[in-house]
């Protein structure tokens, strides 16, 4: 009864005027840059914003990002009968999903994910910098057993150098998740990080809330918002 329908055009063109350079890879999608979104980011960027507000307003952005990410999942045509007895041609959701959060900051995005995707399964990855090699190293991972058959929403709030995100993609691929079924969701990305990431994993879709100016010498995003996990959990 249901037939696959051609995917609608992407909800937002990938080349939003959200990048300082304006040359985004085609796999990058941003939220529309409205005054309201800018106001949300202004609140969470402000160093004087108290933790309660930081949590509330970052959750609002995360929900918008997850909603946007889900738009990249397939749908099929579906006809339903309404309570008034008329038929309605709509669409039905297709494909199972799961979330994977990169510890610890990525966990902060889980509440937002669960508000949009009820009781979604969530895997975890802990990646830390190896003190000897200075490279990201996998310390821990735990995934749903059928992750290879699911679409994966990878959660990490900040894409700075892209090191840990690329390591996470590598781990997912080792678990038989193909790149084209991974949607990487972050709040703020650096142009350098995006370039490296998309160059290495061109089929992974990247949903980002804002593309900032760049990185400082300590590899912090400028202007950024500081350490997301610290501000969300500790400060």
């Amino acid at each position: 009864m249901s037939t696959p329908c051609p995917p609608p055009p992407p909800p937002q063109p990938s080349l939003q005027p959200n990048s300082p350079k304006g040359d985004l890879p085609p796999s990058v999608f941003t939220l529309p840059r409205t005054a309201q979104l800018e106001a949300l980011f202004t609140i969470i960027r402000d160093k004087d914003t108290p933790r309660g507000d930081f949590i509330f307003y970052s959750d609002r952005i995360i929900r918008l990002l997850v909603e946007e990410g889900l738009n990249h999942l397939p749908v099929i045509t579906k006809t339903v009968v309404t309570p008034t007895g008329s038929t309605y041609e709509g669409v039905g959701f297709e494909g199972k999903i799961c979330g994977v959060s990169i510890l610890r900051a990525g966990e902060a995005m889980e509440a937002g994910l669960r508000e949009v995707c009820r009781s979604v399964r969530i895997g975890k990855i802990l990646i830390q910098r190896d003190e000897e090699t200075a490279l990201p190293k996998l310390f821990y991972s735990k995934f749903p057993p059928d992750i290879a058959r699911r679409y994966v929403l990878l959660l990490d709030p900040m894409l700075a150098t892209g090191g840990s995100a690329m390591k996470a993609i590598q781990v997912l691929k080792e678990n038989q998740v193909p790149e084209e079924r991974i949607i990487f969701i972050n709040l703020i990305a650096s142009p350098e990080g995006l370039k490296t990431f998309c160059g290495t994993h061109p089929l992974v879709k990247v949903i980002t809330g804002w593309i900032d100016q760049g990185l400082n010498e300590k590899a912090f995003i400028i202007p950024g918002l500081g350490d997301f996990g610290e501000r969300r959990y500790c400060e």
Partner: protein
Amino acid sequence: MSTTLSRTVSMSRKDLGLREKDEELSVQSKKNTVLVSHGRPPWYGLDGTRINDAFVIGVAGGSASGKTHVARQIVKNLGFIPTVIILSQDSFYKRLDEEQSKLAHANQFDFDHPSAIDMPMFAACLADLKACKQSNIPIYSFAQHQRLEETQYLYGAAIIIAEGIMALQDPQLRELYDLKVFVQCDSDLMLARRISRDVEQRGRDVSGILEQYLRYVKPSFDNFVRPSAAYADIIVPGISNSVAIDLICTHVRQKLQERSNAFRPQMAIPKSHLLSQNPIPIEQLGLNILPSTRQTEGIFTILRDRDASHQDFIFFIDRLSTTLVEYALQFLPYLPHTVTTPVGAETEGKKVTCRYVCGVSIQRSGCVLERGFRRVINDVPMGTLLIQSNETNAEPLLLHAKLPLYIRLRHVAKETYVFLLDAQIGTGAAAFMSIRILLDHGVPQDHIVFVCFLVARKGGINILRKAFPHVKIVCGSVDNEMREGRLDGREGRKVWVMYPGMGQIGDRYYL
């Protein structure tokens, strides 16, 4: 600190003036009240403007002549009446300075002289109420002999009764009355009532009362009150006055009937305009429709499905309303704002610049949007309106209004942005009335954002748009038409139903 429609719904239904004993206990609460019998029918026309003023009755008479009793009898006798406010002159005593206050506490201040009353304020409040606006009337404390800082909010009466010894004395007030009543009572009887009232309720001694009577009350009555009887349309005896009250009520009923006849055919929602063959083209309706994505399309499919489970329906309503309210927030004003981030970088962003934002949901189906609203705006006041349709002629009736302080205070309402929540705009009758209520309170049209899931293209939206072109309307989707029918195969009166629609959204969410 207000007598709202809500508090009096239960009270008035039960007793409507029958509970005389309890009411005697508190002079203030007895005197400024809103009484509701069966809701308030539309007071505006198809173009959104007010057609009718409230009907104002002035009741004057000597102290303890029985003015309040007459006012109550009128309310009781009118029976099946719309909302009534009884407004007392006692609220409008002027602020006293320190010296006057000392005199007052020593019973040496003349409260019976017209100059003791703030007539311009009395007239201004009455004029606001007559024009169907809200009014925040002062509260006078007899214990402290002072006007209190707080005020009492009144709104939404079809009939206003203003009573007080000087109610007919001031020309500004007389201008506002549709009917002027003077309660005539024998002086001996008034004095007897006064002594018994002041001794019992105010704990005063007889000699003090008599002194005050001779010094202030009697001269005032002779010089100011009794002469004002000349302005009255009708003079009512202070006792055994049921015939006079019958006459008054017959007159009021007739006047109200004339008024409602004048506009009912125009506002006979929804038949006159629903089947209009030439609805406004959709792009000219000025709707802000949520951009369609795979996710919103999928959510609507689940919500429209009559076989959707109860859990699914609730979950996806909450998710869709969150998205809708996020989308609606673009209509708040934003200005550039620079902040410093924790890494020490300065960055220019934006900031919401309005000081007052609140939400108002239309019971019951508008409340299904509240959870989503709270996810997006967590710290603003929420108001509620209960609007039901009249069983016999489908006319909307306002049954209950509980509005946030931002809206109740007129000077704040002018700067307040209001998100009005309802599930859908079908006939548009409830949307129309709720917008009119906000405008009555002084909220500017372009500060109102109406948020709903569905709009019926051939429904009331066409007149709503013409009447209130500057109200922002945010909706999830547009359905084509309204048809007369019964929902879910229910028995009873036919209602207007949206096709293909989502059914009875409130029932599906709550029941």
